[in-house]
């Protein structure tokens, strides 16, 4: 972490403390500690920032011996004393200039309030706002009234807002899935709408898409209104406590989804790489371009791309619907029941092995892999070769690396300094690189 990145990261922390943390504190002790955190962050950011530019302190104008002599009250002769005075004055003037430059910088930083551009996008939208919007959007349901708005925090690329409403047909529960104004993945919700529509019609467990709002001026990004489905998220990107029965149902859902005839469903050419001769190669090429354009050069990514290209001939040119982010964090469930597969922004045409590999390491902790694959095959899924498993294991980390590396780049280049971008770019990215190095070492040593 060089000093520029460090400075910016510290500033992101500082702004987050001021904007998000301090206003939520109520106890005096917590407030005073938060003030101290603020103070030390501002100090660190300033010192790291000026470390290079403010210059090093000048060496002491008095020698240790001279100083000790003064201490022991051995008066220097008059000439020497005048000389010493002169040296002290010169030194003090330089020190004053150097130090006051730092303190002025600090004072500036301490005044920085929540003025920098945000991508947290979690500003509250009042229920009156949504009531008015829905009445205009659906004039036939003019009696609709939004009774509650809940903003779900988190969400790396998309925001989620829950609406409870009373309509002419009784109560309703809507999930708004929105684009953030600054988008780390570059895919809008407008892309996923027809895909989810097709899946819903085909009977695959997804939430019912109710409408698409393409007008980005309404809430600062396009959004989809979904019917809320029962259940809860069955895991995170890193862990899950889903029961084995649920995992089997997840396998079955993947199989049904992979069995969808995308051309018949009318999404074949809407899907990314849906018209490519070799969808997997096309995907790899696109991401390699993204990597070159948007991600700071990283040696392990270079090596992984090279390895993937070397394996490509062993991977077929399948063209099925792939979810692309098929982890348990995108599943909803209630006990064993699988209620819905969410987040279709990364879906595309490709090899189903990609989805199966995506959360393999986590699934294996909850259900033996053989049983998972048995459930998948029992519902129409095809077997997957070892090399495809390896290929897509590396692919997963490369893909995540490109997406998170984009945030690293945004942060480095100063496009966005929000804490969310900083954590993805500076924390998640290196974690993924660690996974990638481990996997690549494993597969290449065999």
């Amino acid at each position, binding site marked *: 972490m060089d000093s520029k990145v*460090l400075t910016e*990261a510290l500033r*992101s*922390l500082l702004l*987050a*403390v001021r904007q*998000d*943390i301090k206003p*939520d*504190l*109520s*106890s*005096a*002790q*917590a407030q*005073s*500690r*938060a003030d*101290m*955190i603020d103070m*030390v962050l501002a*100090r*660190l950011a300033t010192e790291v920032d000026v470390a290079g530019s403010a210059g090093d*302190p000048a*060496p*002491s*104008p*008095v020698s240790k011996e001279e100083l000790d002599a003064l*201490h022991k009250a051995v008066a220097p002769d008059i000439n020497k*004393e005048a000389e010493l005075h002169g040296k002290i*004055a010169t030194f003090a003037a330089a*020190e004053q200039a*150097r*130090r*006051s430059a730092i*303190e002025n910088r600090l004072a500036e930083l301490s005044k920085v309030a929540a003025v920098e551009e945000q991508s*947290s996008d979690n500003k509250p939208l009042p229920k009156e706002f949504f009531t008015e919007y829905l009445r205009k959007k659906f004039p036939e349901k003019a009696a609709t009234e939004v009774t509650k708005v809940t*903003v779900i*925090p*988190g969400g790396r690329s998309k925001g989620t807002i829950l609406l409870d409403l009373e309509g002419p047909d009784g109560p309703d529960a809507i999930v708004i899935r929105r684009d953030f104004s600054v988008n780390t993945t570059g895919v809008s919700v407008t892309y996923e709408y027809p895909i989810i529509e097709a899946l819903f019609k085909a009977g695959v467990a997804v939430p019912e898409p109710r409408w698409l709002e393409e007008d980005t001026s309404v809430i600062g990004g396009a959004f989809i209104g979904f019917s809320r489905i029962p259940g809860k998220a069955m895991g995170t990107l890193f862990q899950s406590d889903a029961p084995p029965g649920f995992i089997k149902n997840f396998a079955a859902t993947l199989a049904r989804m992979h069995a969808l005839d995308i051309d018949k469903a009318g999404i074949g050419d809407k899907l990314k790489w849906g018209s490519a001769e070799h969808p997997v190669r096309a995907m790899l090429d696109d991401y*390699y371009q993204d990597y070159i354009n948007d991600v700071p050069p990283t*040696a*392990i990514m270079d*090596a992984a*791309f*090279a390895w993937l*290209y070397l394996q490509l001939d062993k991977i077929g040119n399948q063209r099925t619907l792939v979810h692309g982010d098929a982890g348990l964090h995108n599943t909803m469930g209630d006990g064993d029941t699988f209620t819905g597969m969410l987040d279709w922004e990364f879906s595309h045409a490709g090899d189903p092995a990609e989805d199966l590999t995506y959360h393999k390491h986590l699934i294996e902790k909850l259900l033996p892999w053989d049983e998972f694959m048995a459930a998948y095959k029992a519902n129409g899924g095809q077997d997957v070769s070892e090399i495809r498993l390896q290929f897509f294991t590396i692919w997963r980390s490369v893909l995540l690396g490109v997406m998170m590396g984009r945030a690293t780049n945004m942060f480095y280049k100063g496009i966005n300094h929000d*804490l969310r971008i900083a*954590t993805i770019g500076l*924390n998640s990215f*290196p*974690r993924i*690189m*660690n996974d990638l*190095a*481990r996997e*690549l*070492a494993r597969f*290449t*040593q065999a």
Partner: protein
Amino acid sequence: MNAQETAELLQSLLFALRDDVKPDLTSANARHRAELIDMLLVRMATELESSENKGDATPALSPQLVDNLVSAKAADVYQQAQVEKTISAFAASEKKRLNNLEARLAEISARQAATGGSGEELHIPKEQFTAYLRKRFPDDPDLEVSAITVIPGGRSKGTLLLNTRGKDGTREIVIRLDFSSMVTGVSVAYEFPVATALYEAGVPVPEPLWLEEKSDITGGAFVAYAKVPGSAMGTLFGTDASPEFAKEYARVLAQVHSIDVVQTGLSSKLTWGNADNPARAMVNSFYERYRRELPRLPLLDTAFAWLYLQLDKIGNRRALVHGDAGLHNTLGDEGKLSALLDWELAHAGHPAEDLCYCKQVVESVLPWEEFMRAYQDAGGCALSQGEMAFFSVWRSLQLAIQCLGTRQMFTSGLDKDLRIAAIGYNTLPKFLNMLATDLATFSAR
């Protein structure tokens, strides 16, 4: 600040965030953001800590080679095997390096703040104090402590407020006690006779009730004072006191400075009270501590040299000096000065020290001439230019030395609390800046 120091500071921030801030958060968004802050602090601390021992990296692939693979220029079989080998070697070495880093990160993330840091507050059951008081006042067998309140703050001393009920009714007693690890190294036992002499001389100080030299309850000495109404009238850096209050403060300082330390017998109890030249003895004692315990800074060296060169122009006055005479140590009650507190740094010396100490903050509410007029009208002496210069530099030097000592506590691992970090890394540079400014101003004359 090197990478190691920065990493340690970030960890102090992390612990403060976890221990003090997170539990107080209620909104989901704030909690989520706090998690992100936590995560990023851990990451930054780890990377900085590891930045100094990187080790040799295995050379990576040439970009040319990757580009060739992308454009599907199939390498021949022999070349392909070579490339696979390079990839394999590189992946193995990266795996090792990155695994170590993540393991370190997990370790730092799991690390707990060391216990026993001064961040912990004093919590003493009131029954213990009740038992103590009954033993101390056997003629009041029903005496009891109805409440104990910890007064937060205090750099080196702890403060408790006791509400008692006894035969003479209810009472509020302030207990000022020594912490086990003291920033200043002066016990409350030192200030007791000073406060007593002041109280007897009619200076507005809280009435000292008794001194407990070694208490089983608090683990150290404490002094009991009668509570005085009022609240602190400022900080070390600012005040919102009225001009009238500042004038009253000037009069109180004049009163303090006019106490005859020899007649009252205080001189033998005060630090440097018996020195030939108390001001010189004071500079010497700080200089010796600096040379003995603290890292040398060119600015501090220079400031000491300058002070020594001025010392002949400073008289050897032997007044009672408060030593930390800022408005942060005054209590105001409905605009009136009700008490001057905190006598632990009181010593024999030159009154100009106290005046220069508070000058900057006082001037923000009252012109200095008016403050000095009030001081002189109440019996205080005028200050010479030389005295002003000397004690202005002395003030920032002395505060810088104290902060440097605090930073030493942090770097040596004695106390890694955020409060210590904040003093050592944020307050210190402020005082050094002040010192550089003062020294530049006065040495240019």
